[in-house]
């Protein structure tokens, strides 16, 4: 697949290069049409290719191989065929983990994009003072390491953290007691973790959309307003279509963030309480290092990788209407 893609770009580039090459001394290209990349190109990419191959392709292939074995990580492995992949779906804990992933994708990807759209819609209509400041503040969660984010939010959600403190005030003001041990509660732990993802994702989506909005010609908005469009109409006919590419990028990045969401879960809940916040990425680690089911861990990892590819391709098609 990669070869095909590279081949395509190489062709495209070759057209303008033809005219440039015409003035140069002949014979340099040998039997090769001018503009085609030369074999020496491989030498240039070799260092990067070695690193890529050694630290990405090779582990990927070995991982795929391990996933076909029943192995505790220590002794001799036994051939298991595809049984590890079947248990990915038959093990209720793992099936649950994939279910939680779907919920988290909504929190990590759909919510941030929707919220960012509202913010951008508002910003495109009015001039806001201190835009740079707000942009920086909203983007900040993206810059902080996820582990630090998790530690901070664990405190926010904790027994005597700010959320429970405020709810405690409300309670003493006569409202029902809404305080919970958020991250240890079977009902609320997953949404609580999801909201952290939303918080992290908004900044990214917003910055992408703001950049996109700036390239929309003002005239389009003026035309829409002259035609009597309100805020919603204006957003649907002008802003949204112009931001399709940015939306694709934002959705792809945030969805992948949700799929490989390990650090937040590991630091905030360790998959608990019970299995309530277990996600596949956490289970890859848990099965490999804690319970000694290396084959199963690898099978989950491979499944996740395939899923990530499929989702990315799917989003590209859906939002851009063609092969991304």
């Amino acid at each position, binding site marked *: 697949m990669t*070869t095909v893609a*590279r*081949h395509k770009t190489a062709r495209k580039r070759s057209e303008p290069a033809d005219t440039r090459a015409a003035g140069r001394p002949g014979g340099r290209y040998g039997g*090769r049409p001018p503009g*085609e*990349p*030369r*074999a020496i190109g*491989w030498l240039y990419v070799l260092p990067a290719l070695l690193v890529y191959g050694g630290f990405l*392709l*090779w582990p990927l*292939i*070995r991982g795929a*191989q*391990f996933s076909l*074995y029943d*192995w*505790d*990580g*220590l*002794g*001799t*492995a036994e*051939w298991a065929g595809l049984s590890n992949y079947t248990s990915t779906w038959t093990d209720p*804990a793992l099936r649950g983990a994939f279910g939680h992933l779907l919920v988290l994708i909504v929190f990590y990807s759909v919510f941030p994009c929707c919220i960012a759209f509202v913010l951008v819609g508002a910003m495109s209509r009015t001039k806001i003072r201190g835009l740079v400041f707000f942009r920086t503040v909203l983007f900040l969660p993206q810059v902080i390491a996820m582990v630090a984010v998790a530690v901070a939010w664990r405190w926010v*959600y*904790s*027994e005597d953290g700010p959320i429970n403190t405020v709810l405690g005030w409300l309670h003493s003001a006569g409202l029902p007691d809404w305080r*919970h*041990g*958020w*991250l*240890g*509660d*079977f009902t609320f732990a997953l949404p609580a973790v999801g909201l952290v993802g939303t918080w992290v994702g908004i900044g990214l989506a917003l910055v992408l959309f703001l950049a996109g909005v700036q390239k929309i010609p003002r005239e389009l908005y003026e035309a829409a307003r002259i035609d009597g469009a309100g805020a919603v109409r204006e957003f649907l006919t002008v802003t949204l279509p112009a931001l399709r590419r940015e939306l694709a990028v934002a959705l792809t990045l945030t969805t992948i963030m949700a799929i490989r969401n390990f650090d937040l879960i590991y630091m905030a*809940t*360790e998959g*608990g*309480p*019970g*299995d309530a916040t277990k996600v596949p990425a956490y289970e890859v680690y*848990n099965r490999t*290092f*804690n*319970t*000694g*089911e*290396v084959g199963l861990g690898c099978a989950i990892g491979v499944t996740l990788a395939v899923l990530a590819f499929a989702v990315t391709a799917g989003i590209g098609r859906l939002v851009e209407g063609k092969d991304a």
Partner: protein
Amino acid sequence: MPALMRRGAVATAAALVTALAAACAPGGSSDKPADKAPAAVSTDVAGAGNVTLTVWDQEVQGGMKEQIETLNKRFEAKYPNVKINRVSRSFSDLQKTLRLALSGGNPPDVVEANQGYAAMAQFVKAGMLLPLDSYDQVYGWKKRFPKGLMDLNSVTDDGKLIGSGKLYGVSLNGEIVGLYYNKEKLAKLGIQPPKTWAEFEQALATAKNKGEVPVAFGNVEKLPAMQLYGLLQDGLTDKESVRKLVFGSGGSWSDGPNVQAAQRLSDWAKKGYLTKNANSIKWDDTPVNFAKGDGVFMFGGTWWAPDLNDRMKEKVGFMLPPASQAGAPVATMGGESLPWSITAKTKHPDVAAAYINFITSPEAMDVAVETGSLPVLPAPSKQPSAPLMKEVLTAWTELSKNDGTTPYIDYATPTFTDAFGGPLQELVAGKKSAEAVMKAAQDDYTAFQKKK
């Protein structure tokens, strides 16, 4: 030049396929390391030449860290030709990295490998630890240590049975899970330290009525509930059946007393005897909360004692868990700290064995007392000075006399923390019945017994 590209791609693919074929099934052969003949064992450390011994331990907390550092220094002073390269990690970090380290080509020489089917038994099965029986004949560990403690560190070659087979490690400190209580609060509530479970439940009710948190409890990690369950189980059934059950030689988790234990835990949670929202409180925060006064009682290991002694001074007391009837012998979980084992691939097994012998010698037991730890064997010449440490020692001595230790429950299967600890969290949250929880435990247990 598409042809070249295609050729490149084909070559890459071919190279990958070849490499894959060359890389055979994961995991090495599981040849067992040969047990050295006792005659071939050398105790001559000074004559071993310059040796660097790499030691991985988990003693990162105050007193224990000091204990190991002191012992290492003394060993190096005794044998100047030996240098100890100490690598210390917290318990959970060590558990995760040890597997990788042991399966690698160049493992450390001495490691602290946890007991149980999740760790030591698997390492033994894979042939990664050196049996210590011939060293034992030279150093006489089995003569110094009670049989029960040596059994905890013994496994059969196939890793299927803990408690028999060869010896794979020696432990340094003793540890038990017991009952901490806040003396000040007990006095205020007018309660005596409870001797029986009936008295204890009464005390909990009194504490609850007076607006106190009866039992400080934090259960994010799932293990705390398993320990609490284990204590209740020890109170409802006899120690032999618990030992058999955990080590896989009889009994079922869904047996009557085992379900009753879960039911009692569930009742406590429903009556509000445990810290509210316990599933969202970290284990390490439990003693901190208890020291702050959020809790009249707390079940916990002796490994918390040095820290609690610093925080609470004479306000805290320690005792064995209550007995089923007044005067009846008590059983509780515990035994000994993580055993020190020698890896099969070490180049210096003799020096490693001499090191293990040194850090478990009577002299080392004195060092343990000095640094505030609980030595596994009585220290020959030192006595603890802090009142809490004295109570810990009294409890330990009494338990050793009755042979009252039962194994930790997470030894039972490699997946037990999730398979039983997870449902226990649901039990504490009131989402699952005692029967359902014990059935989940039994299902995981049966699956593991079958696979073993």
